C-alpha cells in the first residue's frame, strides 16, 4: 500500500515533467494499457454481472435471498462491523504513539504492523487455530467454558481483524509524520487537555486520511478469503461469509447463484472504489494544506 504521502509525491512529479515522445509511442502505450485493462479487468467484471443475471431477475433475487446467502451476508457485515472499528481504534493509537512519542522498540512496532501484509492470510488463520482450536493452547479451557472460537463466527471475526490490521495505521503514520506536532504543541500551550487536542486539532487534520484508511480496511474486510476460509469451517448457513459462500456455490456447479453473490461483492467493491477516489482527492488537499 503506497499511502497518501507517496501518491501525492508521484502526482507532483508527473505534473512537473514535460514528456516529449513521438505520437505513435503515446498511442501504443495507451492502447496496450487500455486493452490490458479491458481484457483482464473490465471484461471479467462485466461477466460477473452478465452471468449473475443470465437466468433472469427472479433467479438472481432468489439466489441472494435464500437463507444460506442471507446468513453469509449477515456474517460478512458482522465481521466487518467489528473489525473496522477495532482497527480504527488500534490504527489511531498506533499512529499517535509512533508519531508523537519516542520509545524503544518503535521500529519493531512499525514492522509488526506490516506483518499481515507479509504473511499469507492462510498462515494467519492457522495461527489462530493453533491458539484457539480444540488441539490448541486454550482449546481445553475454552471447551470447558463452552466457548467456540474456531469454526464459528468469532473465528471469522478474528481472521478478518488479522488481515486488516495494517490498513488504517499504515495510512495515518506517514500522514501524521508529515504534519508534525507543532499544532498539537501550540494547542497544549494554549491550555488544551490531551483529549481536546485530539478532538479539536489532530482529528480535523487527519480526518480524510483516516476515512481513506477506513474505506480500504472495509473493502478488505468484506472480501477476505484466505484467513477466514481456514477459520470458518465452511458450515453453510452458519460460518460462511460472502466469499466463502461463493466458492461453495461454484464448486457445487450453482454457477448463476455463485455469480449473483459475486455481483453483490463486486458492487460493494465498486462503491468502495468510488468513495475511495473521492476521499483520495480530499486527503491529498489535506496533505498539501498541512505541509505548505
Amino acid at each position, binding site marked *: 500500500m503506497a499511502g497518501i504521502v507517496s501518491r501525492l509525491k508521484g502526482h507532483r512529479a508527473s505534473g512537473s515533467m514535460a514528456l516529449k515522445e513521438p505520437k505513435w509511442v503515446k498511442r501504443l502505450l495507451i492502447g496496450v494499457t487500455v486493452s490490458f485493462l479491458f481484457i483482464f479487468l473490465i471484461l471479467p467484471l462485466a461477466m460477473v454481472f452478465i452471468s449473475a443475471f443470465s437466468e433472469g431477475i427472479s433467479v438472481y433475487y432468489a439466489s441472494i435471498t435464500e437463507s444460506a446467502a442471507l446468513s453469509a451476508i449477515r456474517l460478512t457485515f458482522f465481521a466487518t462491523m467489528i473489525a473496522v472499528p477495532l482497527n480504527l481504534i488500534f490504527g489511531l493509537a498506533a499512529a499517535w504513539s509512533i508519531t508523537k512519542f519516542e520509545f524503544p522498540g518503535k521500529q519493531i512496532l512499525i514492522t509488526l504492523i506490516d506483518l499481515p501484509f507479509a504473511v499469507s492470510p492462510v498462515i494467519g488463520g492457522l495461527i489462530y487455530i493453533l491458539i484457539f482450536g480444540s488441539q490448541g493452547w486454550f482449546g481445553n479451557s475454552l471447551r470447558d467454558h463452552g466457548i467456540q472460537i474456531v469454526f464459528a463466527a468469532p473465528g471469522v471475526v478474528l481472521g478478518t481483524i488479522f488481515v486488516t490490521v495494517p490498513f488504517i495505521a499504515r495510512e495515518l503514520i506517514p500522514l501524521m509524520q508529515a504534519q508534525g506536532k507543532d499544532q498539537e504543541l501550540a494547542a*497544549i*500551550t*494554549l*491550555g*488544551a487537555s490531551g483529549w481536546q487536542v485530539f478532538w*479539536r486539532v489532530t482529528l480535523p487534520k487527519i480526518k480524510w486520511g483516516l476515512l481513506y484508511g477506513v474505506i480500504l480496511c472495509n473493502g478488505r474486510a468484506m472480501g477476505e478469503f484466505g484467513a477466514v476460509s481456514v477459520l470458518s469451517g465452511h458450515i453453510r448457513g452458519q460460518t460462511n461469509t460472502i466469499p466463502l459462500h461463493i466458492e461453495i456455490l461454484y464448486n457445487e456447479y450453482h454457477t448463476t447463484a455463485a455469480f449473483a453473490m459475486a455481483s453483490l461483492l463486486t458492487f460493494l467493491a465498486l462503491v468502495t472504489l468510488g468513495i475511495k477516489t473521492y476521499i483520495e482527492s480530499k486527503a491529498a488537499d489535506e496533505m498539501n494544506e498541512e505541509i505548505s
Partner: protein
Amino acid sequence: MSIQVNNIHKTFGKFKALDQIDLEIPSGGLVALLGPSGSGKTTLLRIIAGLDFADAGSGTISFNGLDVTSLAAAKRKVGFVFQHYALFNHMSVFENIAFGLRVRPKSEQPSELEIEERVHKLLKLIKLENFGKRFPKQLSGGQRQRIALARALAVEPQVLLLDEPFGALDARVRRELRRWLRQLHEEIHVTTILVTHDQEEALEIADEVAILNHGKIEQRGRSQAVYDFPTNAFVCEFLGDVNSFSNEKQTTLVRPHEIELYRHEPSGIEGVVRSVNAFGAVERIEVDLLCEKKLILVERSSAVKEKHPLSTGDLVCVKVRKEFIFPHA
C-alpha cells in the same frame, strides 16, 4: 512576571544540549537568546514552556519565584509562538485566536460575547481587523505570524516565548515585523523571550541578550554592552564581522569599521586595495596587508568615502582604532 532558570541540564543521549544554565529574566523584559544552531537556545525555550523537560535531578524553572519545574505546559500560562506559525489550518482566524478561551473548563469559559470582544481587540492590536473570517492558508507568512502571536496573547499569558518567529519570513517582512514586535512589547509589557540566530535581530529588538554556545551561556547583558565589550572571542565573532589575528599567546579581533585607511606613507602598516564594494551607506573594502600576507575587511562611511575615494590597486596605510584582545586559555 519574572522568570528564573536555575542550574538546568539537558542531554540527548550523549549530547549535552544544555549545560548548567542559570538565567534570570526581569518582569516585563524582552530578552533574546542568541546562538548558532545547535547551541541549545530552542531547547531552553521549550523547557521554560514545559514542552520539554530538563534532565532528572537538575535545577528548577520558576515564574515570579514560584517553582513550575514539574508543571504541565497547559498549566503554565505561557504564550508560545513557533517558527512555522503552527496555526490550526482548519479553523478561521477568529477561531484560531479564540481557541485558548474555548478549551477552558466550562466554569472559567468567557461568554460568547466576551470571546468575540477579546478576539476583536486582539485583531485590532495586530492590525488585521477584517481578517477574522479568513483561513490561515489565505494569508501571507507575516500575517500568519501575527495571528499566531494574537492567539498566544488571547489567553493572557504570563510570559511570551518566541521561537525564531521571523525565521520563515523574507528579509523585508522580517525587518517590518521586528520593529512592530518591539512597539507591541512597549504596549503590552509581557515578559518575553525571543530565540534567534540572527544577531542583528536580537540586538535590535531585545533589551538584553544572552549568547549561547554548546549549551552554555557565553555572555549576558544589555545589547549595546555585549556588542561593545564581548567577554570572549566567540561572542565577539558571533555579533558581527571581525578581522582575526592570532598568535601563540592571544587572538586579536578588529571590527571592519574600527579600521582606518589613510594615504600611503613608508613608515605605516602598508596594504593594497583588492576590491571595493560600495552599496548603501557603507563601503566595504578588502585590503591585502603586505607585512602579514593577509586579506582584511574594512568598512567606511559614505562621508569618508566621498572625501578619500579609493579604487582597486591603490596603496594605503592601515590604522586600527579599537581592538579586542583575548589571551588563549
